[in-house]
């Protein structure tokens, strides 16, 4: 469909909408929605950069703005339905790609350079964080999954903030990246298991089969590199004209997605595991990611975030109960990080403990994944999902800002005294 015909379709749609005020809802052509999403995805980076926000926050905010506008029109009697099967598939693909990318970003080798004491400290902080995050929601009778979502952290936001401040290679940066990574992974695993736990014995089977399958696949890939290095070289070579790397990665993601569903896990966990497996097996991920990133971050993932935002309306927040929930989420998030970090004196200085807790408060990928998992399992309704997404967006705006404020005061002093940690 040409651009001109899309414009004509848009004009016709608007005429129909104006005619159908107060009447039945009007379904918009999927290509028109895709066009809208594409334009928003194009503008989002400029908008985010201007406001110094992570790009994903900009994408969700645009989606939320559209969602709010549609809700507003709905209240005025103009019904527009932006749901589409095609967008649904693209959005799911975007989500799968996002989970794969998150998995790929993990680097467990960093754990090797830690002492046993530091490893225990990390384990303690992460466990305490989830426990503290879960308790208030269980007391309030809310689903456990909300606590698990709140206990997460987003490495995808933490990393750019640290990089922007030039402290990602300091002792502080290294530790916080590790914490964020582990909290991120743990949250996604816990979310999947909490949903799968409905299955009783099946959950036990899942719990056993997951590490076994992972090790078998790792072994298989490892053998492939050893016995068929020429073939693997073609796959990992970014200059290969047939783009075998992209094709094989895509195929692997979809296979893992199906495999996870087969063993009764959240399907997205499959894509996530695929990312972890690729990260563990290939180490140097640059050449593979360089080919896959444009498809992911340039096409599929923005569709997912913007389309996700379409279902959320800020108007819902005018409800005092919703606002209270949002404040509760943010407070629990902060407290669940502050208490274990302070109790274990995880970082050297008091102010770096505060700073670390604030930065670990950023939580978007886990929120988005958790909402999707919760909705599909029928545990979360649309309203709570919306509030959770808004909480995720707020956390990504609020906590990095506060972190920068706390940290900037001490940054100069800190950089002088903290040696580079290139481990």
């Amino acid at each position, binding site marked *: 469909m040409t651009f001109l015909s899309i414009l004509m379709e848009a004009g016709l749609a608007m005429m129909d909408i104006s005619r159908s005020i107060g009447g039945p809802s009007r379904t918009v052509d999927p290509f028109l929605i895709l066009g809208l999403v594409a334009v928003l995805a194009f503008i989002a980076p400029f908008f985010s950069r201007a406001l110094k926000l992570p790009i994903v926050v900009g994408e969700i905010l645009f989606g939320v703005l559209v969602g709010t506008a549609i809700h507003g029109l709905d209240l005025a009697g103009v019904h527009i339905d932006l749901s589409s099967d095609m967008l649904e598939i693209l959005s799911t693909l975007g989500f799968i790609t996002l989970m794969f990318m998150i998995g790929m970003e993990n680097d467990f080798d960093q754990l090797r350079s830690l002492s046993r004491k530091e490893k225990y400290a990390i384990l303690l902080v992460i466990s305490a964080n989830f426990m503290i995050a879960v308790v208030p929601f269980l007391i309030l009778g809310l689903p456990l999954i909300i606590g698990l979502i709140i206990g997460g952290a987003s490495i995808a936001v933490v990393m750019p903030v640290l990089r922007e401040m030039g402290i990602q290679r300091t002792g502080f940066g290294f530790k916080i990246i590790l914490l964020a990574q582990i909290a991120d992974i743990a949250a996604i695993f816990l979310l999947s298991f909490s949903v799968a736990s409905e299955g009783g014995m099946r959950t036990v089977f899942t719990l056993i089969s997951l590490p076994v399958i992972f090790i078998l696949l*790792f072994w298989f890939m490892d053998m492939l590199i*050893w016995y068929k*290095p020429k073939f*693997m*070289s073609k796959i990992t*070579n970014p200059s290969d004209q047939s783009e075998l790397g992209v094709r094989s990665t895509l195929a692997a993601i979809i296979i893992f997605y199906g495999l996870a569903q087969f063993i009764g896990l959240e399907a997205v966990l499959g894509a996530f595991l695929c990312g972890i497996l690729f990260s563990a097996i*290939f*180490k*140097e991920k640059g050449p*593979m990611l360089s080919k896959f990133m444009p498809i992911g971050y340039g096409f599929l993932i923005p569709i997912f975030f913007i389309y996700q935002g379409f279902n959320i309306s800020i108007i819902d927040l005018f409800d005092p109960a919703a606002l209270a929930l949002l404040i509760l989420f943010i407070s629990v998030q902060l407290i669940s990080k502050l208490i274990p970090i302070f109790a274990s004196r995880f970082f050297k200085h008091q102010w770096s403990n505060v700073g670390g807790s604030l930065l670990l408060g950023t939580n978007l990928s886990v929120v988005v994944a958790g909402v999707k998992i919760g909705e599909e399992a029928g545990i979360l309704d649309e309203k709570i999902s919306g509030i959770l997404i808004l909480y995720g967006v707020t956390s990504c705006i609020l906590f990095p800002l506060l972190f920068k404020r706390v940290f900037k005061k001490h940054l100069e002093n800190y950089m002088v005294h903290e040696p580079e940690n290139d481990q």
Partner: protein
Amino acid sequence: MGGGSVGGKLALDLKDEFVLIESDPSRVWELREVLKDNPIDHEIIHGDGSSFTAISSASGKFDAAVILMNKDLENLEAVAALKKIGVSRIIARVNRTENMARFIEQGAEVFNHPIGYEEGLIRTMLYPDKSHALQIFVREGSPAIGSTIHELGLPSGAVIGSIFRGERMMAPEPSLVIKNGDLIAIDTVGKRAKKIWKIFSRSGKVESSGHLLFPLTRDRDLMAIKEIEILAKKLGSKIVFILPPGKEGLFIAAQGFISKRIPFEVISTASEQECILESDRRVVRWKRLDKKGIQMRSIMSEHMKDGSPHVDLMIVSSPKYSPFYLPFISTNLDRMVENAPMPILISRCQKPYREIIMYLHNRSAFEINLAIQIARATGARITALIKARNSKRALYLQRFAQVYKVKVEIVKIVGNPTVELIREVKENHYDLVIFKDGLRELQMSQMRRLVHQWTGSVLVVP
């Protein structure tokens, strides 16, 4: 090219016919006067050394050229002109360190200016002698750490050619402070190597050789004895046998395989009389330890603490081949390799190395030192795999290879380093593969497979 003070002194020392090109007419006259009694045939021409006309006007065919002008641009032009007329060896002075890469790219052998005693360095480069060119990796514990080059008190005639630190090639200025991990190229014009080793070694021992630690724990270890003997002979190293209790019989068997010229030390719980035949007394030192003392790790640590700049290796025999090797399960060898404070060689090669392969990463220094020293001793060629972002390391390797006359081939890889290294190792014949343990860019399960399943020797650097 360039008949300044260095050029003039060098002209007096040259052993072959030469042509000297100098742009200053009064200096040309002066040099003609100084060199009129020189028995070596020579010609002194007035002209611009960087111009092709002046260079091509010099009659004859040249085997080597030395460029000593004071501007890098002129020197670079001279290198290009000399390449055009087919001069195979070009030694050039680099006045600014940052220009060094451009010279190396054009195929010139280089040295930094000013370093003092340049003529000695050039003479060493022109007439290389193994005992003259030293490469020193400054290890923890070396007393040289913290001293400036001036304070080192190098013997006269010894010149620091270059220092590689982190990712930078440093100009060897007298005020530069030596740091742990520096890789230093030193050229000497006499047999002063022993004094230099002493400066860099904590124990202050005047030793000119490294140590090859060889634990004899099982019969299979005797399979490595041939490779140890070759290395000890070529590197001029001493073999240190480590004998756990009850393995003295193995040592008696091992002695039969070792040439009488190779010195060795023994670390054992038994006494010398129990293991050495009266007719075969070649032991330099017998160190007797109690049973608790025979701990590989502590012996290695103790050895490394010395800060000696020599090549010290622990050599172990290869494990039994198993087609069903599981990289998830750590064996004793894996644990030893992971925790070893010194390089470990897994022996599988029974003849001198011809082809060595290594992966160059952005912090390679110790590996380069080891590879160059082993290749220099055995005459092997080094193939270095490198990602484009680490190309500075390749320049450094090339620079050292030029000085020490080691053949190096740089292979730039675009894909995954682990996959490319395995592919290269499997597709071509290599006798030795060198890699750094725990390197993020390399998949350790594949590196473990190299240790356990490959057919050649593997050197794992900590």
